[in-house]
């Protein structure tokens, strides 16, 4: 097993033991990026020099004893481009922020660097995290490493593709309606969206503030756990950040024996690709074999989730994105007067999907429509949360497919935004309810990955990770694409 096969924990272990240097780890990542990124286009920006300088510093100036206290010593990581960084540009995939440099680091970036991680670059995404395919970036599409004619999922498609194609062992994504879990599923990697408030949003460019959460994408459950252990900390700079204790660094695989797993009927109905369904059911059988208690449940308000999401998220987005007005930073397109400067800047700076959601959200908040749209959506949101509360009285965890189908082809859903929106149907509910959701790769069909989603009660990340870890142990080691480079 070579370096390329190491997950983040193994990488850090080797660096801590002095068996490889941080520079070697970064060089390995940079060489993978060099060979693979031109095809996959996972990265928008790679800071080779900066990353090597940090690695060199660690190799020369950090003692072995000190490295033992760096849980991610020398681990190259990728950061979704909606988390701000001092050392690299931050664009959120939008032309309106082209060339923008943040004067401060996001809290998560600080925490990762403090733990010894070395940020090698910023990953591509749907503009302002609005999309499910990473096709809506102002800087080109990201391709699925398993099949470059297909999408990697989105909006954290760059982070998922970077981990799947082994450019880096670990990446951060953000998840507003499924933006970590969907690309994790489509690319065959692990990804978790924590409980709302677990990870500080300070420095995350807001899409929908009440739904956004940062989380890791990785190649093993333990990598997710170690990363969350480090970044899920209370942050005084985020008033919605929870102060509720720390997630275990290395959760023990849970005993599947008599674990009560809920299977919501609403997630196993019509519309699921038969190949996905078959693989999910096979996996459920494995869980059953190991003694898990699979219990049919109902989450009756699930059918309103997409409509609810597409009122709340655009409403908040319309507000969050109004600061991009050309006055202080980013793109400015001149106009005859102030109003026209605003109009020209936003007309040229935003892509069509972003404009669509700003319009939707602005309408939903308009005088005379607020009660019927935004307020009602918030009420439905409460009902969706109550569905989960009730379900978790009866079961420990819930399992569903992460997404109903296999990665679709580039451009396939361009003309039908509604079809695109439905891609998130199994993932948006956890954002609306604020609960943790994890996508785990369970195998391939037709050489394309399939993901299974775990959902848990609020703050039950440890439980979710333990169960995923148990399943990880009984499934074959996930394959990875392109061991010999991309096959066109």
């Amino acid at each position, binding site marked *: 097993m070579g370096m390329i096969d190491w997950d983040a924990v193994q990488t850090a272990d080797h660096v801590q033991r002095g068996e490889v240097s941080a520079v070697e780890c970064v060089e390995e990542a940079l060489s993978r990026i060099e060979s693979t990124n031109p095809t996959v286009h996972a990265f928008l920006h790679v800071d080779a020099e900066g990353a090597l300088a940090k690695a060199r510093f660690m190799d020369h100036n950090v003692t072995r004893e000190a490295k033992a206290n760096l849980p991610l010593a020398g681990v190259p990581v990728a950061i979704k481009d*909606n*988390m*701000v960084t001092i050392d690299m540009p*931050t664009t*959120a995939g939008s032309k309106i*922020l082209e060339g*923008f440099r*943040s*004067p*401060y680091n*996001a809290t998560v970036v600080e925490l990762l660097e403090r733990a010894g991680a070395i940020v090698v670059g910023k990953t591509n995404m749907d503009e302002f995290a609005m999309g499910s395919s990473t096709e809506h970036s102002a800087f080109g599409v990201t391709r699925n490493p398993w099949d470059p004619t297909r999408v990697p999922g989105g909006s954290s498609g760059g982070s998922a593709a970077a981990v799947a194609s082994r450019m880096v062992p670990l990446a951060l994504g953000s998840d507003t309606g499924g933006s970590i879990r969907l690309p994790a599923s489509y690319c065959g990697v692990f990804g978790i969206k924590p409980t709302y408030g677990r990870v500080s*949003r*300070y*420095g*995350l*460019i*807001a899409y*929908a*503030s*009440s739904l956004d959460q940062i989380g890791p994408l990785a190649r093993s459950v333990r990598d997710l756990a170690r990363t969350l252990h480090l970044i899920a900390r209370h942050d*005084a*700079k*985020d*008033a*919605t950040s929870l102060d509720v204790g720390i997630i275990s660094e290395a959760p023990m695989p849970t005993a599947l024996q008599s674990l009560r797993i809920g299977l919501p009927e609403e997630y196993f109905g019509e519309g699921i690709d038969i190949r996905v369904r078959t693989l999910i059911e096979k996996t459920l059988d494995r869980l059953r074999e190991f003694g898990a208690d699979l219990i049919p449940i109902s989450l009756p308000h699930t059918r309103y989730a997409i409509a609810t999401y597409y009122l709340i998220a655009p*409403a*908040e987005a*319309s*507000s969050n994105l*109004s*600061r991009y*007005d050309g*006055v*202080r*930073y980013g793109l400015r397109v001149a106009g005859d007067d*102030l109003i026209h400067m*605003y109009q020209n800047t936003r007309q040229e700076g935003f892509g069509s999907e972003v404009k669509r959601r700003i319009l939707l959200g*602005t309408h939903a*908040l*308009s*005088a005379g429509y*607020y009660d019927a749209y*935004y307020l009602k959506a918030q009420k439905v949101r409460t009902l969706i949360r109550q569905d989960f509360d009730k379900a978790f009285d009866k079961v420990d965890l819930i399992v569903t497919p992460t997404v109903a189908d296999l990665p679709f082809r580039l451009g396939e859903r361009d003309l039908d935004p509604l079809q695109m929106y439905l891609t998130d149907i199994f993932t948006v509910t956890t954002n609306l309810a604020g609960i943790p959701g994890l996508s785990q790769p369970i195998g391939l069909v037709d050489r394309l990955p399939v993901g299974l989603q775990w959902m848990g009660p609020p703050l039950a990340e440890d439980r979710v990770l333990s169960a995923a870890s148990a399943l990880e142990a009984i499934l074959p080691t996930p394959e990875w694409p392109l061991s010999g480079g991309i096959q066109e």
Partner: protein
Amino acid sequence: MTNQYEVVIGLEVHVELKTQTKLFCGCANAFGQDPNSQTCPVCLGMPGVLPVLNGEAVALATRAALALHCTVNSHSKFDRKQYFYPDLPKAYQISQYDQPLAENGHVTIQTSIGKRDIGIERIHMEEDAGKLNHLGQRLGDAEGSLVDLNRAGVPLIEIVSRPEMHSPEEARQYLVELRTILSYLEISDLRMEEGSMRCDANVSLRPLDYTGSLADLPRVEIKNVNSFRNVQRGIEFEIGRQRQLLQTGQRIVKETRGFDDASGSTYSQRSKEEANDYRYFPEPDLPPLVLSETWLQDQREALPQLPDELRQYLAQRGVAERDAEVLVQDLNLYHYWAQVVELVPDVRLVTNWLLSDYSRLVNAKGLSFAAPKVNAGGLASLLSLIISGTLSGKMAKEVLETMFETGETAEAVVKRLGLIQITDHNAIKEIVSAVVTANPAVVQDFLSGKEKALAFLVGQVMKQTKGQAKPDLVNALLREVLATYA
């Protein structure tokens, strides 16, 4: 249709809170600094930033609400008020919309027919915007504008009165009393010229036979007037303008008007029909503001003595209402007064001296009571010399002036100038007799009924004693001696 109208006025007052830091970030809340020197990513509205509520601002706002007799809501929340303008970095202002910090208070004003409570509908917290500095002479032909965001994020409270004032004078009184109350709390600089207190006035005329709701009356808002005097002038002008319109059968347009200081008139800025839809919605980055009863109790206990309490106290101490009001309006003066009264318990003497001679000197020399030239102990010693009869009132005035000039104590001045009042009965009588003997003609005048002649004789005695004879004693002795001539 009647020609009789009732004036209806409501005021919205913005007050900047004098906190250490801004409302949602750690930047200093400081006036008059270099442009954009008091800023950080949060108040600049950089991508990714989040607001964190400043507890000190909540405490100051709560104290204002309590002092204005409001009910402070244990649950309130923040909302985003959205509009584009270069001085508003996020393109939304974090404010409080439908669940404000406090509601239902009042300010008591003195009207011609007695005291009246003007209701306060609500007090809410919000962040201030920055400032634009336009390049060029006028906004209309400005070549550009520079944005200064030092003020962006400074905490404000907005105090919204009920439309319960009926004359420009009542509006002025409301503002004066509001400012007095807030000044006791020391929560704001309250300087209208610096913008730390700002006032918008809503004015409408209600025909006496109008029975509909006040909210439906066409209302004109006069924006951002820079002094109490101009609020009053603006309202006066607006009443005249609206009355004129109504009497000539024209319609009053609901609009926002500016006030022009030079002409004393108001001018149209924008009509409400084209007003913004602010698209308020709950601020998702801030949890609801929950105030515990214990915390509220702490705030109640932190309240200082308020103007009405002080008025009551001064009345008890026998200070005349007019004098009391002067003390109430100037807390530094009151504190000085209280210190002097502590040392010289003659309330009347102290009050008279402080409000007349002492204040005259302070004002003439451009001094203040915050850092008095002659401290309370100094004035008390001087007044004690009057009470003991050592100094006459007239002499004391001279001594006080000298004290202001040289910084000496009263005793030192008296000693240096030898200013001891002559109270020795025999010594004065001797001089009186001599004066009477030396002025037979004047004595004759007096005896023939010219009372004025007495004043001349008093003057002569005072002259010979260098003004140090006790005046009432001189008077009495003169009459006594003159009586022997009759």
